Structure formats: C-alpha cells, structure tokens
C-alpha cells in the first residue's frame, strides 16, 4: 500500500513538472515573454530594465529554473491589473469556485443516482423513458445557453431567484462562503444546477446502465433467494456494486467541473477564479493566467490522487491487490 502510494505521488509530481514545462514553453516560446510578463503600458526604458530583472536575456533553461523555483515558493508574478501577487488573487477567488463545483457534484449525485435507479428498475415505463430522453438533452445542450434560459425563466419571467452574483457570504475557517446564508444559497441554486446538468446526465446514465447490467446477475437472484427485502437487494447489493464506477467517474469529473465553471461563472457573474481567468485573458493579465493554469493543474492532480485512493477503499478486490 505504501509503495503504491509512493508511486502515485511520484507520478503526480511528474505530471506537475511536465505541466510547468508546457506552461513555461507556452509563455516564453510560443507567446512573446516581454509582452506576457511586462505590463503593456510600460515604456521602452522600463521594458529594458524589466527584461534584465526578469532574466529574459539568460538562456532558456536558466529562465525555466527561475520560473520553477519561483513557482515552488508560491511566486508566480504580480497581476498588472490588480498589482497583487497572482497566486494570492487566485487563492482569494478559489473558494467561490470550489463551493460551486462541490455543490454541483452533490447535485449530480443526489439527483443522478435516484433518477438512474428509477430508469434502470423501470426501463420501459414512461418515466424511465422520459428520464433517458432528458439525459440526452443534458449532454448536448450547451452549458452557457442553458444558463441563459435559467436566468430568463427563473429570474426574469418568474422572479424567483436572483440572476447574478454570489449574494451575502459568511465566514468559516477564515474564508467567505455563500452556502451559509439563505440568500447565498438562493444565489447559488441556478449556477450550481447549470454546472451540474451534464454531470447529472452522466451519473444518471451510469447508474441506469449499472442497474441494467447488475440486475440479471446471479448474485442478485441469490440475494432474493435468501429472502431479504427488495429494498435491501437494490440499495445494498446492487447499489454498492454500481457505486464503485460512479464514484470513480464523478471524482474524475470534479476537475472538469472546476474548469467548466469558467462558463457558468461568466453567465451568472459568479466571482470565482473562472470569471477571473476570462477577465485576465481579455486584458492580457498573463501572470494571473499562468497562476490559474498552474493552480488548476495542481487541483487536477490532487483530485485524481484522492479518487484513486477512494477507489481502493471502495472496491475490496482492488484494495487487497494493492495491499499485497
């Protein structure tokens, strides 16, 4: 188990390293580093000074080394726009995004699994077919358009929910959260649902497929032959089996949700890091862009690690193999 953990950690570190190289090359080779790292408003003399200060006249590998050691110390440059360390800006916005993404994950599980169970247990019922039909829509509707329609219906026409923003927040562990206030929750409802939509469809389909696949299995029949209640057969025997792939997929999708929050945050003016990155791309605030990319890759790698771990906890077959 420990050697397995160690190997995964080394792998993760390696992916991070590769990403620093890619981002470094993207910024310094493909893009023009002077333009990227120095404020566009700087004049000629300022430029020359900055080039020397940033070491842009040094060989590439040395520049990379500076970039890497800076990154390791949490220094990814300062934002031109906010004149603050880029990493600090990202860190400030991260809770809003994480809050949104985690709520979306919860929504996709809370809604997706029951709907999928229903569609799987009653595949030919009207309800079951309707759920499957709707799930196809959930996959192919563009997120941003669904977001607009949500705003149009629930904010503009019905006036039930606030259209944009994060609403009032409350502090917990030194961070501001929306979900701790009622109005904050109302602000979060539409963006979270919007972000979750594709994942609800995904979880629903996985669940349904799992039910269809597991129901005819002998172990289900044997469980019934033991005289245990139908509910226990479905919610303990079958669900435990299909939960394993679902947890894996949902876990791996969290990264995707955080990345996709870019769209939802833009639609609902949610002040998370996705909104920040779009604004930064638009005004060419490159240090923030670099910080965002490094941060999100880190999140990805960490999430994948956690999912791998969770998978081994859930599935006894894998767990024992890795132990030995």
């Amino acid at each position, binding site marked *: 188990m420990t050697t397995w953990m160690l190997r995964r950690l080394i792998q993760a570190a390696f*992916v991070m390293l*590769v990403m620093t190289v890619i*981002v470094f090359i*993207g*910024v310094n080779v*493909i*893009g023009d580093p002077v333009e990227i790292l120095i404020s566009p408003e700087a004049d000629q003399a300022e430029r020359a000074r900055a080039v020397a200060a940033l070491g842009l006249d040094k060989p590439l590998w040395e520049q990379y080394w500076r970039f890497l050691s800076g990154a390791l110390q949490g220094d990814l440059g300062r934002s031109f726009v906010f004149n603050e360390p880029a990493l600090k800006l990202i860190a400030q916005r991260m809770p809003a995004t994480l809050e949104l993404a985690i709520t979306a994950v919860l929504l996709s599980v809370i809604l997706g699994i029951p709907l999928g169970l229903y569609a799987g247990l009653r595949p030919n019922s009207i309800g079951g077919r309707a759920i499957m039909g709707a799930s*196809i*829509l959930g*996959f*192919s*509707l*563009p*997120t*941003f*358009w669904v977001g*607009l*329609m949500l*705003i*149009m219906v629930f*904010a*503009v026409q019905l006036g039930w929910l606030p*259209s944009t923003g994060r609403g009032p927040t409350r502090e917990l562990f030194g961070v501001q959260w929306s979900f701790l206030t009622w109005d904050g929750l109302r602000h979060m409802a539409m963006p979270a649902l919007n972000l979750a939509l594709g994942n609800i469809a995904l979880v629903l389909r996985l669940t349904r497929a799992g039910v269809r696949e597991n129901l005819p299995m002998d172990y289900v029949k044997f469980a019934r032959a033991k005289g245990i209640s139908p509910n226990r057969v479905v919610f303990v025997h079958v669900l435990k089996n299909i939960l394993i792939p679902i947890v894996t997929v949902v876990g791996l999708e969290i*990264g*995707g949700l955080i*990345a*996709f929050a*870019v*769209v939802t945050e*833009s*639609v609902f003016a949610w002040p998370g890091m996705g909104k920040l*990155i*779009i604004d930064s*791309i*638009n005004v*060419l605030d*490159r240090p923030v*862009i670099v910080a965002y*990319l490094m941060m*999100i890759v880190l999140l*990805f790698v960490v999430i*994948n690690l956690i999912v791998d771990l969770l998978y081994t906890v859930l599935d006894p077959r894998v767990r024992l193999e890795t132990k030995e």
Partner: protein
Amino acid sequence: MSATSHDAAPMPPKQETPFRRFVSEYSESPVAVASFVLVVLIVSIALLAPFISPQNPYDLAQLDIMDGRQPPGSKSLEGLTFWLGTDDQGRDMLSGIMYGLRISLGVGAGSAVIACVIGTALGLIAAFAGGKTDTGIMRLVDLQLSFPAILVALMILAFLGKGVMNVMLALVIVEWARFARTARSAALVEARREYMEAAQCLALPKWRLVFRHMLPNCMPPIIVIFTILVARSITLEATLSFLGLGVPITEPSLGLLIANGYQYMLSGKYWISFYPGIALLVTIMAINLVGDQMRDVLNPRLKR
C-alpha cells in the same frame, strides 16, 4: 463510378453493396432520417445564406440603428419584416442567424477535418510503427484526454491570444487525440485481418498497404467520431465566442450572437439570445442524433 463496359454485364438489379446496406439500416429509425434531413437543410441554409437571407447583416449600410431591438414580427422603416426581431444594431436576427450558422459550421467542421487528418495519421503511425513511437504518441493522447477540452482551449487561447484562427487551432488540438485513439484501435483490429496478411505476402509497399487497404476499412469508426466531434466543436466554439475569446464582433457566430443578446435578456428582450440559441441547439442535436444512429449501424458489436 464504374466504367461503362462493366455495366453491360448482366447484374442483379439491386446489389447489396455495403453502402446500400448502411443506408437501409440507417433508415430504420425515423428520428435518424429526420435528423439527417435537418442536417442537410441546415448546411444548405449556411451555404446559401448570401442568397436567401433577407439582409446582409455584415453590411453596415443596410443596418439602421433606429431598428434596434425590435421584437419578432415588427417591420423596419423600409417595410422589411423582422420575423425573429432585431439586435441592438438593428440587425435582422434571421439574417444574423443564417450568417452565424455559416461561421459556426465552418469553424466547427473545418477544425474537425484538420483534427481528423492529423489525428488519423498519427493514430495509423502509432499502430504501424509500434514500440516507442506508439507509446510516445499514446502517452500524449492520454495526457491530452485527461484534461477537459475547455481547459486545453483556454490554455491555448491564453498563450496565443483570442481570434478565429486561434480558436480553430485550439479545437484541433483538443480533438486530434480522439481521432488518433480511434484510428489506432481500428487499425490494430484491421491489421489482424486476412487481407492484410495476404497483401503482405504480395510484398506490396507499406504505405500502399496503409492507404489503399487499411485506411478505407478503418473509416467507419472515424466517420462516427467525426460527426460527434463536429457537434462538439460547434458547441465549444460557441462557448468560447460567448466568453468573448472567439470570433470577432464584426462577423458573429451563433455563440457571439447569443452573448450579444445576453445583456438585453434581463430587460425581457429575450429574442436576441433566444433564437440563435435555438438554431445552435437544433444544429447540435441533429448532428448528434445522426452520429448516434451511424454508430449503432456501423458498430459491429451491435449487429444482429
């Protein structure tokens, strides 16, 4: 296709060619047929937009700011009916959508074609070369696919700046990996078939093997992936344009049309966003449904 001299030979009137079989199996689902007709219709509208649209939405001389934000069905000062209303510039939405479709389809299909060529080539190379080349290419594919498309696209646009060409490049980079993976696995299956062995015995040159024999047989799964990825490119382009990172405001795609209408929606002027959205939706759904049916028909595992 065939030379006329061959046609003289007595032939059964209805030969069961693979294409015929494909068509007949595809037609089994009415929804799929309707979707196909719809796709043809949409593509025709996009191609013929300059001839059939009521207005040239790019020609500023034809626009009158006084006609701005008119609801659907209202008339312009010159008596032109705006069936789907107008945007803030006084642009007829119907015309805007027709031209927008051109750009959306063009960017979507164009990038998918390029990605298809590059990806398929790399996939075939991986399958054929094997060894280190194969591992190298597939590692790259895995790395690429482990990050969501939107993130990769954002990264590229962040490096290169916004613009249509950069969006297309981003789409190509996002998609080539799927083609590579599909082509490689299809090629590996094909490589084990008898005709490949037979061709090898005849000592035909290797490139000839790949292009004349293997590629045509690998086509079905690639076509399916292509269809689905065109739909995905269109969605992604619309999303990027909506975020303001894609096409320029002077020649808006559907995504940008929707974005333009966004600010007016809160004041109840829904049509500026709504109708381009419907056009986008119908396009994506139709292409997806066509792709789904093709997959079902071409997938040997589902064959009865």
